[in-house]
């Protein structure tokens, strides 16, 4: 039995995308609508909200739980309380990242973003193909500004720490 964190719900609720957790009445419309929850018992957005409310911080943040969400926003449409479960997931992932819990795929995209200004970059053959089709060049015109912004927001640090 893990120790409950008294302030976890407040911590989540105080983030820009996490306020919805306070609206949750645990009705289960999100979980029964969630395409992932229907496939695996590991993911259950309703239970995740309950764990946040109760303060099971150590069971939520270091694990894969918030990363199962597809962000398909079905729950946002169906939540009768406007609890924005899918949005709260972003709040949880933001907090998880700050604890160092970031899946490799996401970390890779973030890194690419910082280094190139884009999360996906073309391979050599694609570049050649573009040229042969007369499509415009992919430039890095905005990169410098992107890096400045990411430094300012502190995301650069997160990227470098990985």
């Amino acid at each position, binding site marked *: 039995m893990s120790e409950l964190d008294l302030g976890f719900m407040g911590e989540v609720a105080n983030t820009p995308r996490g306020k919805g957790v306070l609206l949750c009445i645990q009705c289960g419309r999100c979980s029964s609508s969630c395409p992932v929850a229907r496939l695996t018992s590991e993911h259950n957005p309703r239970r995740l909200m309950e764990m946040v409310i109760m303060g099971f911080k150590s069971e939520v943040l270091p694990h894969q739980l918030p990363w199962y969400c597809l962000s*398909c926003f079905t729950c946002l449409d169906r939540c009768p309380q406007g609890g924005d479960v899918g949005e709260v997931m972003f709040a949880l992932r933001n907090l998880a990242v700050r604890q160092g819990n970031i899946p490799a*795929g996401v970390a890779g995209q973030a890194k690419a973003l910082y280094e190139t200004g884009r999360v996906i970059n073309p391979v050599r053959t694609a570049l050649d193909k*573009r040229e042969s089709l007369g499509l415009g060049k992919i430039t890095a015109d905005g990169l410098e500004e992107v890096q400045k912004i990411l430094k300012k927001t502190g995301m650069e640090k997160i990227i470098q720490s990985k």
Partner: protein
Amino acid sequence: MVKNMKYAFFLGCLIPARELSYEVSVRKVLPELGIELVDMKGANCCAPFSIQSVDYASWLALAARDLCLAEEMGLDIMTLCNDCYESLLMVNTILKRNPELKEQVNQLLSEVGKEYKGKVDVKNLVDVLYGDVGVSKVKSAIKEPINGLKVGTQPGCHLTKPKRIHFELLRGFNDLDALVQATGAESIPYERKEMCCGGPLRDINDDLARQVSRQKLMALKDAEVQAVVTVCPFCFLQLDLGQLEIKRHFSEEFNLPVIHFIELLRMGMGMKLEDWEIKAHRIPITELLKNRL
């Protein structure tokens, strides 16, 4: 009234890197319908969901920077990818409604000499075709109707959800179907149309991502459609490439061709696909469209 048919064209990351055929078709078809596309020089990644998961402020600032570029161009944005669309649209909506947040974001942007003013709108390919061009004009542009083809459409989550954002803009769930019908093809209703393709779980839990796609494909198969029509390049990738992966992992074969909507429209307008474009589909479309290719 003549609508402003000129857009700042936001390509995003995935399309220019991996789905050139989509880009080519858009560049061929839209001018024919009177849409002028102006490339956005210096645009950065929209900050999709993966980036939003890392940091909130970075998302707002990066998307706002793209919006600033469009403001400088004096044009509304048109996106192809649903991820780009939702990201830019949400930030645009949030910042327009929240002056305090706008102030904070502008503080970040001042670092790079930009200021978000909230003067442009964000649209998607479907919005532009449905709202600006109009179904009737699309229909009249069809020279070789795709008669007899039964398709299931995949508008993709972020074209329609959350409803409170999209419905306010009067952008509906059935816009894509109306456009598909205009090409002569038949849009068959199927269960779980609103369901996600599974793509966002790629690289996080590939197995689950495939299982979600599989559910979607099974529903499409049950409705006896001949092909899936997508708008979002991620949906396309997940459902097209995904079928090969499902075959590998579940030994289950759907053989359901996946087509970008713009390709359907292009063929209907009498512009044939080129060989490399046909081959860009991992599930072959040659059998299905043999008379048109």
